[in-house]
């Protein structure tokens, strides 16, 4: 499973693409993905907000993650 990282999320992880190994328990939902991230990188827990996009749409915690989905971490946005 690959996760796209932007903004501060990229700085926290140290790269723009995070590969979650298939030998680990892969997150099956947005909620699990957030939990995995916060436990691996506690700095995610300190952000003002943490959103996830699945196939370039904002996804709520109960959305399930499927193989082939484009998954991205959306830290607090600051455009404009």
């Amino acid at each position: 499973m690959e996760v796209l990282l932007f903004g501060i999320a990229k700085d926290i992880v140290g790269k723009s693409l995070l590969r979650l190994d298939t030998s680990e328990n892969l997150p099956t939902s947005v909620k699990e993905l957030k939990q995995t991230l916060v436990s691996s990188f506690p700095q995610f827990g300190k952000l003002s907000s943490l959103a996830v996009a699945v196939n370039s749409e904002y996804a709520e915690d109960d959305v399930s993650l499927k193989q082939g989905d484009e998954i991205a971490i959306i830290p607090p946005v600051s455009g404009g």
Partner: protein
Amino acid sequence: MKKAIVEIVDVIDTGQVYQELSHPKSGGICVFVGAVREFTQGEEVVSLEFEAYRTMALKEMEKIAMHASDQWQLNAVVVRHAVGPKEIEEPVVVVGASAPHRDACFTACRYLIDTLKERVPIWKKEFFKNKSVWVSAHP
């Protein structure tokens, strides 16, 4: 005919927006331009940089443009954001609405910029003399 222009670009040319919004049925055109400010909370910004999740940002900008267009019966709408390194006074975002009367275009313009700031996955990093900060990342 309705027109929506949604773009992410490297450099914004503020001169083109009037032509894009001009319409025979529009008596009012309202444009907001966001620019790089020199000071943020008393600290001098040297430069800044915008990064976008391009596919999703364009989708969200498109949704905002379409919603505004329907809600306020706009004749034309522009939502354009810049990415990459930016200097003080450089324009970084332009939104605009074109409508028969001014009330609709003022209200739509406000909606366009406010919703863009709230939802569109674009991130601003400010560079100060001794540090750099992703804006709004922390409470």
